[in-house]
C-alpha cells in the first residue's frame, strides 16, 4: 500500500520544497521506497535542494507527453538508493499537465513506491490543482506569520472542498526566543487558529540554509531542524513521537555548539 502525500502551503517561501526534500529523505532513511515529484512546472527547485540538478535528462512533462518512459525520468539519489526524484520542467507552463494526467502518473508509480510525495507550487491555480489531484493526504506548511497562516487557512478550505482525506499541519521556522518575548505566535496559537492536526514543528535553524547550500538533506544530521524532520517521518510511519522541547534544546545546544565552533 503506497501513500500519496502533497506538501502545500498557499504562500510561497514558507518551506514546502525543504519539507518535501527532508521528509522524502527521512522516509528513505527508514528504508521506505520514496519518490518525490516536483509539480512546480516552470519554477523547479526540488532538484537543486536535493543536489540532483546536474543529473536531469527527462522531466515530468516529458513523461506526461510520452517523450520518455516513466523509469527514464526518475533520478535515483546517490546517497539513498531508495529515494527517487521526478523533476519538473523548467521551460514549460503550469497547464502543460492536467489533474487527470497526474492521477494516471501516480497510479503508475504506486506499484513501485511506498511513498509518493508531491511538492506543490505556491498559489491556488492550475499547479495546485495538479498537485492535489492524486493525493491521499496533505501536509500544510506554514510559518507563524499572519500572511502565511491566512493562506494556509485558505488552502485547508480548498483541500476540504476537494475531499482530501487527511490534512496535517507543519509549523516551520518558529523562533522560541521570539515566542518567549511574545513577539511570535505560539504553536498553540497557530493550531487554535487553523484547527487542524499538528504533525510537526520545525525550529528556525541556520543549518537549513547550510544544507540547502550544499544540496544535501538536513534530516539525519545532528541539528534541531534535522531532528524535527526525522520526528515527522516517524509520525508519518505511525509512531507516536512526542514533540521535542525546542526551547530547552536550543539553549543547551546553542551553548555547546558555540563552544565547539570556536576552533
Amino acid at each position, binding site marked *: 500500500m503506497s501513500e500519496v502525500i502533497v506538501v502545500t502551503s498557499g504562500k510561497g517561501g514558507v518551506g514546502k520544497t525543504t519539507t518535501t526534500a527532508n521528509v522524502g529523505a527521512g522516509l528513505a532513511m527508514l528504508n521506505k521506497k520514496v519518490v518525490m515529484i516536483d509539480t512546480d512546472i516552470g519554477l523547479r527547485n526540488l532538484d537543486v535542494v536535493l543536489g540532483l540538478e546536474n543529473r536531469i535528462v527527462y522531466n515530468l512533462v516529458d513523461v506526461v507527453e510520452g517523450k520518455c518512459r516513466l523509469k527514464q525520468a526518475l533520478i535515483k539519489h546517490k546517497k539513498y538508493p531508495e529515494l527517487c526524484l521526478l523533476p519538473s520542467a523548467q521551460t514549460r507552463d503550469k497547464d502543460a499537465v492536467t489533474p487527470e494526467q497526474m492521477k494516471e502518473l501516480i497510479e503508475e508509480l504506486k506499484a513501485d513506491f511506498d511513498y509518493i510525495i508531491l511538492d506543490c507550487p505556491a498559489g491556488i491555480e492550475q499547479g495546485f490543482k495538479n498537485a492535489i489531484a492524486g493525493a491521499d493526504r496533505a501536509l500544510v506548511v506554514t510559518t507563524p*506569520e*499572519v500572511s502565511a*497562516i*491566512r493562506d494556509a*487557512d*485558505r488552502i485547508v*478550505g480548498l483541500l476540504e472542498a476537494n475531499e482530501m482525506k487527511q490534512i496535517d499541519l507543519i509549523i516551520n521556522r518558529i523562533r522560541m526566543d*521570539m*515566542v518567549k*518575548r*511574545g*513577539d*511570535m*505566535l*505560539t504553536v498553540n*496559537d497557530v493550531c*487554535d*487558529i487553523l*484547527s487542524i492536526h499538528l504533525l510537526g514543528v520545525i525550529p528556525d535553524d541556520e543549518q537549513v540554509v547550510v544544507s540547502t547550500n550544499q544540496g544535501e538533506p538536513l534530516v539525519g544530521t545532528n541539528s534541531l531542524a534535522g531532528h524535527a524532520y526525522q520526528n515527522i517521518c516517524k509520525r508519518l510511519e505511525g509512531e507516536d513521537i512526542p514533540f521535542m522541547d525546542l526551547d530547552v534544546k536550543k539553549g543547551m545546544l546553542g551553548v555547546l555548539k558555540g563552544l565547539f565552533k570556536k576552533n
Partner: protein
Amino acid sequence: MGFMDFFRKKSSGEVAKDRLKLLLVSDRANCSPEMMEMIKNDIIEVISKYMDIDSQGLDIQITETESDSNNGVVPALFANIPIKDMRHTPAKKKEENK
C-alpha cells in the same frame, strides 16, 4: 482603548492572533466589508422602529460559536447594539403622540 491597556501593552504575538482570528472568520464566511456595512444599516433600520439605539456605537462582526446540534464550531453573526432609550411603543404610535 481601556484604562488598563495603558499599563500593559499587548505583545505583537497577541495582536497577530487577534487580527488573524477575526480575519479568518470573515475569510471563511466569504463576507465582504460592503456586505457587512449593508447588514449593519439594515439592522439599524429595523431595530430603530422599536427602540432608540446608538447607531454610532453599533458593532457587528462574524465570529464563531459552539453549535448546539452538530457539536462543532459554526460561524455566528455577533451584534452589539447599545440602546439609548427603551421605547415600548412602536415608532408609529410615538409619531401620533407628537
